[in-house]
């Protein structure tokens, strides 16, 4: 999870989620924001996702899921469907990407979706109904006094059929009460408890109660690995994490541990893979300097292809289309929610042996980024005996 400052017009800085969802420039709307679309065969084995999609539009819906589970893409989908049904639909989100995608969908289909932040929505809505500004804390116009707001609106009935909330965990509980009581007949809320970042966030249960929501549908991280890749990822799985539940029906090659003798031989692996398969390749490194060196060597050898480096410092997440054919160099902090056809994990000696849950989690996350092919690369330094021993067996990870 990466936090970036999100400046509000009022001059106050709020931290908003950076959402690593990619919108290819050529497409728009739903397809654009979604992960690679599954076949029906694949989707039909993903019961939770399907349940979300089949949820009736005239009823409340509550969805919980970690990053990479496709929540934002489902929020666009739901917003689009609701707008088509009801003509006009408010969407509450801080997520820039979501707002942009919704705008594209709305423009393309001549439907009306209004995406706004919670604060501005409540301000406008309350004012439209009462003619007044919503009551707020004396020294903080951003902190609404929900109880006072409720009192002012006694007797007011919801005037919208539906309202969609994304990143609900970041909003105050009071808002959900307000939305369900006075704004919309049925709420659709997407949230991720683990991601909560603002001080006044709400828990899953608080949101459910205040918003009059049904039991949540809980999505798991929705990457589609071959069974072989999934086996390596699961080796690093710690108890608390959801495991990769969606496994592709086809079979792939067993991931491989490769020892390279120097930088050049590592680079030639990456280049070979790109020549053979094209597609998207993720190269995960630990040290920034290594990432820079890899990027510049690869770029030299593939001058006319996409070779990007992607990091929090560069703040370039929405300018890169990581899913298009090409090579993306990134560090372990930036891999969340990403997906590549092939993943190379370099500097393996710096990632293993894992000594705590956080390190295991990092290994799990890195391995699970690979759809089809996974290479763990070490060298020129040999792996320590401990590191070697912490790897999965030969049947799971070829040497």
């Amino acid at each position: 999870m990466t936090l970036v400052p999100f400046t509000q017009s009022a001059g106050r800085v709020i931290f908003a989620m950076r959402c690593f969802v990619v919108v290819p420039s050529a497409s728009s709307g739903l397809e654009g924001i979604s992960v690679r679309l599954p076949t029906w065969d694949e989707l039909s084995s993903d019961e939770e996702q399907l349940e979300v999609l089949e949820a009736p539009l005239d009823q409340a819906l509550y969805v919980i899921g970690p990053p990479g589970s496709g929540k934002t893409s489902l929020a666009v989908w739901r917003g689009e469907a609701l707008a088509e049904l009801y003509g006009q639909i408010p969407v509450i989100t801080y997520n820039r990407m979501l707002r942009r995608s919704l705008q594209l969908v709305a423009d393309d289909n001549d439907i009306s979706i209004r995406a706004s932040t919670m604060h501005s929505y409540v301000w406008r809505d309350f004012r439209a109904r009462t003619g007044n500004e919503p009551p707020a804390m004396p020294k903080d116009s951003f902190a609404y006094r929900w109880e006072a707001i409720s009192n002012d609106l006694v007797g007011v009935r919801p005037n919208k059929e539906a309202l969609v909330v994304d990143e609900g965990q970041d909003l105050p509980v009071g808002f959900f009460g307000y939305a369900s009581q006075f704004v919309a007949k049925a709420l659709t809320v997407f949230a991720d408890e683990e991601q909560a970042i603002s001080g006044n966030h709400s828990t899953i249960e608080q949101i459910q109660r205040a918003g009059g929501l049904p039991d949540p549908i809980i999505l798991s991280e929705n990457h589609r690995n071959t069974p072989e890749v999934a086996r390596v990822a699961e080796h690093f799985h710690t108890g608390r994490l959801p495991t990769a539940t969606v496994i592709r029906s086809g079979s792939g090659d067993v991931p491989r541990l490769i020892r390279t003798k120097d930088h050049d031989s590592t680079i030639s692996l990456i280049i070979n893979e790109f020549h053979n398969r094209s597609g998207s390749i993720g190269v995960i490194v630990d040290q920034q300097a290594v990432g820079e060196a890899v990027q510049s060597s690869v770029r030299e050898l593939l001058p006319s292809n996409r070779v990007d480096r992607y990091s929090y410092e560069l703040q370039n997440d929405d300018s890169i289309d990581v899913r298009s054919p090409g090579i993306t160099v990134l560090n372990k902090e930036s891999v969340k929610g990403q997906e590549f056809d092939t993943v190379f994990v370099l500097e393996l000696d710096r990632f293993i042996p894992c000594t705590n849950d956080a390190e295991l989690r990092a290994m799990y996350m890195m391995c699970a980024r690979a759809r089809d092919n996974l290479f763990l690369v070490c060298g020129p330094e040999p792996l320590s005996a401990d590191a070697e021993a912490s790897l999965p067996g030969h049947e799971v990870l070829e040497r």
Partner: protein
Amino acid sequence: MFRPDWLGLVTDNRRLFDALEDGWLRPLPSQTGSIVGVDSYLREQGEVEGNRIPVRIRLDVAKLPDLKVAAFRHNQWETMPLSQVAPKEVAAVLWPGVLPFFSVSELTVPSEEHRIRLLGIGKRISNIEIPEVRVDCKDEEALVPSMPPPNAEATLTVPMAEDSIRGAISMALWAVPRIDPWMNVLMASLSFDSRALRRSTSQVNATWWRFPPWARPLDVEPDDVQERVWLAALEVLGSTDRLAPREVADRIAAEASKDGSAEDGSAVEEWRRETIGILRAAATIQHQNWQEHPVGLAIQLVLSRPEPSAFKTWFDEDQVNLAPAVAWSAATLCGLFHGYKQLSTRFRGKQDQREVVAVQTLRMCSDCGSVDWPSISSDPPGWRREAGNFVITWGGREIVSKQERERGKWYRADLETEAVQREAVALAKTMDWRCLARVISLGQGDRPFSGSGHLEVRERTVKVRGDIEIQMSVGDEVEERIDRDAFLRFVTVAPGRLPAPPAMQSPIKSDRPECRIPGLKLVDGFLSEAEEKEILDQINRSTWSCELSRRVQHYGWRYDYTARQVDPSMHLGPLPEWADRIARRLFDEGYVAKLPDQVIVNEYKSNQGIAPHIDSKSSFEDGVAMISLLETWEMWFRKFRGDKVVVKLERCGAAIIRGEARYAWRHEIPKRKTEPGPVRRVPRHRRVSLTFRKVIGVSQPLQDGRLVEGQG
């Protein structure tokens, strides 16, 4: 007469998606057929589960074969042909097997909310397209028969292998190289014509296609290791086992070396090792092996690209150098490996294709091959060219219509035409195709020869014994000509992206510019190469004026670039001999109405050009001729607010503008460093242009200083 119009059933969205993915609506698990309503809807199961969407499906009886069905009449089940089911008496029939989705004529859901939700889910799935859905809640449902249907055997079943075969055929149709000989291979393969297959596959150097993935001829044995590997690949990739790519390579290798020689065995083993190396990123695919190991290469491509969707970018962007045989074989194997259900909709073709391929595949690979489908005849596959497209027909239907590409155009280009011949020679040289023959053309006369051998002429053949040397005379030439058959073979089989042949270039350029610019006349080869050389020698010896950024020479009259005119004081004297000769030729051959008396020589180097202009209307008569020396550059013409028309000023050619072309179109030479060549852009060096014009109003001064009217 009593025949029902439609059959109907009520099911849910998941069953609908199953059918859309597959093309067949299969019976529920553990059942051999589906109970459907006759001219009415019948609920397939009880209430629709959970939040699933109830969908009513209406099937058009006119598209279904007339099978024997069990009909529920007078409270009992009776067997009768579907065509004899009387809708008034029979509420339900048991359809004996799968129902084709192409017979669906209408889908309805109970409410707008259901419709939006259903179409919305469809948008999230890559391999289905939901047809139009209507909202209707009025139609009443028929009553479910009070007795369970008899245990009838299914007559319409889809075997396991069908999905693979349909996938292979669909991909083969999608990827077939659009060139005549390849179309012939496809047709022969789809119609199981083994003689035509033998002939057509040898014409494209792809004899392994004698064994199409969908038709294994039993009486033909593989001839070489490529064919053995291909057969092994069909066996392994066509099986329903889901294998990892490395296992596939191992199995194909084992299968292929089963009955072959030791030599073949080691070749296969080498291929296997190479393939494993590729899959481990230790080696790269060797595309240059397209002649030695086309099949091995195709399999490596399939194994390194796990999804059919990779083929789109693969062909269009990163592997344009694939040989047609390799690309087509790989795409077809990929379809075989993944099967039809996994194919995204873009590879499935249009509705007609889906319908015909579904039925034809069933005819090929199941026991129900003899079932008569009313909408699809038994016509064999065929193809024709129509309005720039390749059109494929099958079963009496047009199933594919795809635009002809550059390769296909070369295949039927008229190589007898000089321009085509010239470009073909250039293409062959650039691509390094060994298809050029050298021809000595000798004019009339005797030629002495020396050397120890001797010559004999018999039946239009010069027989040479021993070594001889013939001394050529002035005017004798050695030319390179295309060996037509060899050239067409390369066009058919060689890798690489080809430019379009001349006069068959992309639509904007294809119609001759003369048609688009009234008054423009292009004359190829107006000068001979010898003349070009002679004129250049003269020009190079003369003095250049450097008043412009480019060098110029003026003859006859000097043109004032600032005043944009010519006046009598600017007479420079008569045209030099070479210029006078060409001016007279232009006049004599009718290209200009008056004898030109002014010539400007322009020298353009590299990125020099000339801005858009119309030649001075007040200074020069109608009829301006431009002759190009040394290089072929483009000239752009544009009429006021009109589109640009690109005109190639061929080396040694003349371009004459009269009337509208002269007065209403501005022309320019773009400032740039390269020009489009036959294969790729080529750098500009030097082009010399000769412009012939007739000055208005002033007549050529005679020797004694009097003026006379300009000639003719």
